[in-house]
C-alpha cells in the first residue's frame, strides 16, 4: 500500500486471484479445490494475497509475444554478467585509511586499517592491520586463519572450524547419495530396463534364482545423517561451562547494542558463532550484478541491459515497459481543479507535515478517472467494477460512463506541436466567438468548470490520447450502526478493523480492444497463423487486466 493517495496499482494476470486456473488443470488436480476462483470472481484488494499480485506501474514489464503484463514474479531473471564491482570503493562506509609514518621520517612503515566513517569503528579494535591497500579480502582471510589456528591449540580439543566442518559434511552427503543410490543406477548399463525384467530373464534361462538374486543384491541403505565430527556434525556441548559462563557474564555487563543480531551473524560463516560485537569479523561487500529479465512463459527478453558498457551507464538493448503498452489509469477528486502536487516532490518543508484529509463516510464524492493510451491506435475501453467494494468496508461505486474510446498517442513531435493547442481543445465548445476566444486566452473559464455536472453515459473530458470519466463513490462506514440485538462474540470479532481496512480501494476491470493492421502485427506474425483477420485486413487485439485505485482513507464520523 502506498503511503500517498491517490495511487494506481495494476494486477498481473499471473496469480489465481486474477485469472482462474484453466479448467483442464483444475480437473486433473482433484485435490486442489479452487476456493476463491469461480468463473467471474471479483478482485478483492483487501485479500491478504492481493498484495503479491499488485504492483505500481513502474515495476511492470510487458511481454509483447504473450501480450500480457508481466510482474516481478513473472519475469525470470538471468544474470548477464558479474561482477560489476564499483571499482572506486569495494565496501560501503568502510575504507582503507591511514599511513603511519614514524616521526623521525627515516623509516616509512606504511600500514593500513579499515575504518568506518559513520560509527568510527576501526580494524584496530580487533587488532587487524594491512600491509598494502589492495587485496584486502586476501589479507583478511589470512589473518583470520592464523587467528583461528593460534586459538585452537591453546584451548585443547577444539571443534573443527566451520570450513572444515562444511567440507566434511559435503563429502559425507556425496557418499551417502552414491551409496543409497538411484534404483536406476545398476541397470542403466544393462539392456534390461528394470530389476523385474532382469530377474525374469534370469529365471527363464536358469541361473540364479530370484530369491538368491535378491539376497545377493545389496540392500540400499536409507540415507542417514552425519554421526560424528569427521562426517561433519557440529556438536554443541554444554560441557564447556567456563566459556559459556564467561559469555553470559559479558552479556550481562555489556548492553544490548554489543550483542550481535541475526543479520550480523549470518553475514559470513566466520561470524556464525559470534555472540558479541567485538567477535565479529569484517565481511567484504557482495558484488552487484546486472540482471536481464525474460518472460516466464515465452522466452522473450523483456529487459536486457547492455553488458558492454561500464557500470556507470545504465543503457538497455531491449526494454519493454508496461507503461508503454497498457492503458494507464489515474484518479483524482472532482473538487480540486488541478491535479494535486506529487508528494514526492515536496518543495517546501511545510508541505511535508500535511496529511491528506480523511474521506468522510456516507457522503457521495465524485472522482475523475483518466485513462491514458500509450499505443498508436485508438482503443475502446470497457470498465467494470463491483457495485460495492469487496472487503470489510463496503463502499458503493458507480462508473458513469463505462464504455468509451481513447485516442492514439502521437509521436513526440505531434505532442509538442499540439501542446499549445490542447488547452483550447479541452475547453468545451462555448458560445463561439468572443467567449471562446476569451476562454482560450485566460485558460479554462472559471464559471464553466463549476457549472458542469457529470452526466451518466458521457465522458467528462477528452484530449488527444486520454479520456476522463467520472466515478461516484459513496464511502462506507467503518463501524456498522449498533443494532437492537446485542452481537455475539464472533460477530464482534468479525467487525474489528484490521490494518488497511479503512483504505478505500476500488478494483476496476479494464478491457481494451483495438485493431492493428495486418502488416503491423508483429506479435501475430511470430505466433504464426492463429489470428483472425477481419475483412478489411485488421487484426483484433484485446487486453484485459484488473487494476486497483487507491482513493484515500475513510475517517470516522457520520
Amino acid at each position, binding site marked *: 500500500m502506498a503511503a500517498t493517495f491517490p495511487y494506481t496499482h495494476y494486477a498481473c494476470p499471473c496469480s489465481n486471484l486474477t485469472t482462474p486456473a484453466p479448467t483442464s488443470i483444475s480437473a486433473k488436480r482433484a485435490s486442489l479445490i479452487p476456493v476463491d476462483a469461480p468463473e467471474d470472481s471479483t478482485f478483492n484488494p483487501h485479500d491478504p494475497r492481493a498484495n503479491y499480485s499488485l504492483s505500481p506501474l513502474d515495476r511492470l514489464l510487458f511481454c509483447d509475444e504473450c501480450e500480457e503484463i508481466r510482474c516481478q514474479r513473472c519475469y525470470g531473471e538471468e544474470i548477464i554478467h558479474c561482477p560489476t564491482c564499483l571499482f572506486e570503493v569495494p565496501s560501503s562506509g568502510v575504507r582503507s585509511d591511514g599511513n603511519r609514518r614514524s616521526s623521525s621520517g627515516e623509516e616509512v612503515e606504511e600500514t593500513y586499517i579499515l575504518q568506518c566513517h*559513520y560509527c568510527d569503528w576501526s580494524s584496530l579494535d580487533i587488532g587487524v592491520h594491512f600491509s598494502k591497500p589492495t587485496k584486502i579480502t586476501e589479507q583478511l582471510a589470512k589473518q583470520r586463519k592464523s587467528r583461528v589456528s593460534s586459538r585452537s591449540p591453546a584451548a585443547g580439543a577444539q571443534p573443527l572450524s566451520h570450513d572444515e566442518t562444511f567440507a566434511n559434511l559435503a563429502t559425507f552427503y556425496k557418499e551417502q547419495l552414491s551409496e543409497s543410490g538411484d534404483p536406476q543406477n545398476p541397470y542403466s548399463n544393462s539392456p534390461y530396463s528394470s530389476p523385474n525384467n532382469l530377474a525374469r530373464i534370469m529365471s527363464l534361462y536358469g541361473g540364479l534364482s530370484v530369491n538368491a538374486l535378491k539376497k545377493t543384491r545389496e540392500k540400499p541403505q536409507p540415507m542417514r545423517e552425519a554421526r560424528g565430527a569427521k562426517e561433519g556434525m557440529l556438536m554443541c556441548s554444554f560441557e564447556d561451562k567456563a566459556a559459556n559462563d564467561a559469555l553470559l557474564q559479558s552479556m550481562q555487563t555489556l548492553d544490548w547494542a554489543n550483542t550481535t543480531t541475526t543479520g550480523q551473524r549470518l553475514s559470513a560463516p566466520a561470524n556464525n558463532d559470534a555472540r558479541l560485537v567485538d567477535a565479529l569479523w569484517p565481511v567484504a561487500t557482495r558484488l552487484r550484478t546486472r540482471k536481464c529479465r525474460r518472460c516466464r512463459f515465452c522466452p522473450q527478453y523483456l529487459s536486457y541491459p547492455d553488458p558492454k558498457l561500464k557500470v556507470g551507464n545504465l543503457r538497455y538493448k531491449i526494454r519493454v515497459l508496461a507503461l508503454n503498452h497498457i492503458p494507464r489509469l489515474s484518479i483524482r477528486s472532482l473538487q480540486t481543479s488541478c491535479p494535486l502536487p506529487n508528494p514526492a516532490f*515536496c518543495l517546501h518543508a511545510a508541505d511535508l507535515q500535511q496529511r491528506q484529509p480523511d474521506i468522510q463516510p456516507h457522503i457521495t464524492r465524485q472522482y475523475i478517472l483518466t485513462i491514458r493510451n500509450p499505443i498508436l491506435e485508438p482503443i475502446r475501453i470497457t470498465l467494470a467494477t463491483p457495485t460495492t467494494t469487496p472487503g470489510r468496508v463496503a463502499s458503493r461505486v458507480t462508473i458513469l460512463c463505462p464504455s468509451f474510446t481513447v485516442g492514439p498517442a502521437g509521436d513526440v513531435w505531434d505532442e509538442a506541436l499540439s501542446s499549445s493547442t490542447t488547452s483550447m481543445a479541452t475547453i468545451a465548445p462555448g458560445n463561439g466567438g468572443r467567449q471562446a476566444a476569451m476562454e482560450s486566452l485566460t485558460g479554462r473559464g472559471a464559471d464553466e468548470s463549476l457549472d458542469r455536472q457529470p452526466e451518466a453515459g458521457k465522458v467528462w473530458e477528452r484530449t488527444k490520447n486520454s479520456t476522463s470519466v467520472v466515478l461516484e463513490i459513496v464511502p462506507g462506514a467503518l463501524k456498522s450502526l449498533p443494532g437492537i440485538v446485542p452481537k455475539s462474540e464472533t460477530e464482534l470479532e468479525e467487525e474489528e478493523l484490521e490494518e488497511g481496512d479503512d483504505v478505500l480501494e476500488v478494483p476496476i476491470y479494464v478491457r481494451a480492444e483495438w485493431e492493428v493492421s495486418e502488416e503491423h502485427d508483429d506479435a501475430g506474425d511470430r505466433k504464426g497463423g492463429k489470428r483472425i483477420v477481419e475483412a478489411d485486413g485488421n487484426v483484433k487485439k484485446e487486453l484485459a487486466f484488473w487494476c486497483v485505485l487507491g482513493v484515500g482513507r475513510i475517517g470516522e464520523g457520520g
Partner: protein
Amino acid sequence: MSRPQAVTRRSAKSEYIETDTGNKISRRARIEGKQNIMLAGKSVVMAGAILRGDLHRKIDRPAEGEKGGPITAINIGRASVISTDCTIRPPMRMSRGLMTFYPMRIGDNVFIGSGTHVSALSISSHVHIGANCVLSAFCIIKESCKILPDTVVPPHMVIPPGSVVGGRPARVVGEVGEGWGQGGGGEGEEYVEGGDLRALVRSIK
C-alpha cells in the same frame, strides 16, 4: 517643476531571477561565490538554499604558458531542482595540514528535497533525493538512484546505480523499478521521480 514620478514597471519583485539559459534562482537563496557555480540550464534553486561556491581548490600560481582557467566549485546539470533550505557545500578534506576542497558535480534531472545537506563528491543523473537527508563528504551517488527522506549517507559511500537507499547509516534497501523515470509527459503525470524534470521547473514560479 517636479518630475512626475516614474511609473513602476512591476508591482512586486518576482521570487525567481531567470537567466538566459532558463535557470531560476530564488532571490532568497544564499549563494556565495557565484562565479564558481555553473548551472547548466533550466535548473532551479529555491528559497533558502545555500550554495557555497566560495569553497574551492586554491590554484597554485600558474607557470608561464599555463592558463589559470576558471575554477568551478559546483557544477549542476540541466533540469535539476534544489528545493528550499538545502545546503550544497563542496566536500573538504584535511591533507598535509591544509584543508582542500574538491569540486562537486551534480547531474541532470536531479531532484534534491528540502532541507538536505549535500556534500557529495558527485551525484549522477536522474537521482531523486528525499527531504532532510544528509549526504556526507565524498560520497558518490550513481545514476537513477532514489534516496529516501531522512537518510544519512556516510562519508565515502558509493551508491550503485539503480538502488533505493535509506536509513542511518544509509543502506541499499531495494532497487528502482524498471520504469523508473519513464512515464512523464502527457497530462496529469507531468513528471515522475527520476524522470524529466523540465515540467517541474516550468511549474515553479
